[in-house]
């Protein structure tokens, strides 16, 4: 089993790019299966079904969507096995980007929208810096100069990643992504680990606190001036 984990900002074109790439795998008689993770609602599943790819939708609801994806990886692999799929593609919800949902032996694909501004690659953190492939979308809407700056900024953050400039509408660049998916390593779940630890997230908000004032908050707390403290037992 080969596992591809796709992360990216909402609306960056993850689904559009994947549809073109998976259609290409299908033409080569390679079976893939897609799990689409989202928070409350998605109808992206239907788009994958339309091109004849087994699709499962997972809604994280009250759980952190990246944690939900990681927690369910075993089940997803079992499900892909049942469907005789050689490639399991997990499309994550893509929200805060502070988490990098890639595991060590998966192919980590980060989809990033070129119209989001030249500083975006510097802002997003491990979701880009630990990816194997950065897919840049919507490059046709900005100037050549901005494209080059964006590309360079990505390589500044992640010098070892492969950059693919793709167009989710025309499918340009998606065959290259399919090639990389085929080349990716086999994954087994024994000892499989995340590439990057998630932020320290046990906090009062996690257990349902809704009050805003400082005095109600516990856990690892960081003030805007940079002072970090631990409040609690």
């Amino acid at each position, binding site marked *: 089993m080969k596992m591809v984990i796709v992360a990216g900002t909402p609306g960056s074109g993850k689904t559009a790019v994947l549809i073109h790439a998976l259609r290409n795998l299908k033409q080569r008689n390679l079976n893939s299966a897609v799990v689409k993770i989202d928070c409350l609602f998605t109808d992206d599943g239907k788009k994958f079904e339309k091109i004849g790819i087994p699709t499962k939708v997972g809604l994280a609801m009250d759980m952190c969507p990246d944690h939900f994806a990681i927690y369910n990886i075993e089940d997803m692999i079992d499900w892909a096995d049942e469907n005789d799929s050689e490639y399991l593609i997990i499309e994550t919800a893509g929200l805060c980007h502070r988490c990098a949902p890639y595991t060590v032996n998966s192919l980590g694909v980060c989809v990033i929208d070129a119209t989001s501004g030249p500083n975006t690659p510097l802002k997003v953190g491990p979701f880009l810096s630990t990816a194997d492939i950065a897919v840049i979308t919507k490059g046709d809407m*900005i100037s050549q100069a901005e494209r080059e700056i964006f590309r360079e900024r990505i390589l500044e953050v992640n010098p070892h990643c492969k950059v693919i400039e793709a167009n989710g509408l025309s499918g340009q660049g998606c065959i290259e992504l399919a090639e990389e998916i085929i080349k990716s390593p086999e994954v087994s779940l024994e000892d499989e680990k995340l590439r990057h630890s998630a932020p320290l997230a046990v906090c009062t908000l996690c257990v349902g606190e809704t009050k805003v004032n400082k005095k109600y908050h516990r856990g690892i707390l960081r003030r805007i001036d940079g002072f970090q403290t631990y409040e609690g037992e």
Partner: protein
Amino acid sequence: MIIDSITIIGGYNKKDEKEPVEKIDINRGEIFGVVGATGSGKSSLIGDIEQLSQADTFSKRKILVNGEEPSYEDRTNPRKKMVAQLSQNMNFLADMSVGDFLSLHAKCRGASDKCVNAVINLANTLTGEPIKKDHELTILSGGQSRALMVADVAIISDSPIVLIDEIENAGIRKHDALKVLSGHGKIVMVVTHDPVLALMTDRRVVMKNGGMDKVVGTSEAEKSLSKKLNKIDEFMLSLRDKVRHGEVIEDVEMGDIGL
């Protein structure tokens, strides 16, 4: 990398028939046109060249560079990109001043900071409304943006191939813009419906049903017509400036065009 020529080897059209044009060689400094009706496959031809496709796109075309197949590395390493693009759909979205933006771009391409003024000066020869270093990029007009993109591609982006996709309504001196690009030793391909641009190319390929239907060489008569069309274009630009500056145009002296 120095590119002396690119070769397009024909593939298949939308009906899965072999393209009538089997092979086109385009040389350094040449301006090559791509014409055809909407949906005839102009953009997909440009797309094939942009990715230096090797029979791996829908058209199954192959693109050779200096007569040889480019390596996988040359095709996919983003720092080695041979192709720069300019199109009507492109906008400047970066929230920066013109000067800061150009020096950032120059830095990314390993070019000297001196280019910044050169780019602005060149851009100002292509548009009627002067661009200043401290202008915000996002408030530039369509014409200023297009002029700045052309000058930036000519001077800072060192990609040897430039693909231009329909810049007809841009409000810039199109003739000069193409000359600027080909003058910098680039291979320029221009997709256009505009006779001013189409007739100033050396040759043009006519697209039909997704395939390259034929190649037309620009005749001497067309070339001299192109000069006249360019004068009309300049005249329109000068009227545009007058309108822009609040002048009243009640009568134009057609003799002013100097045909």
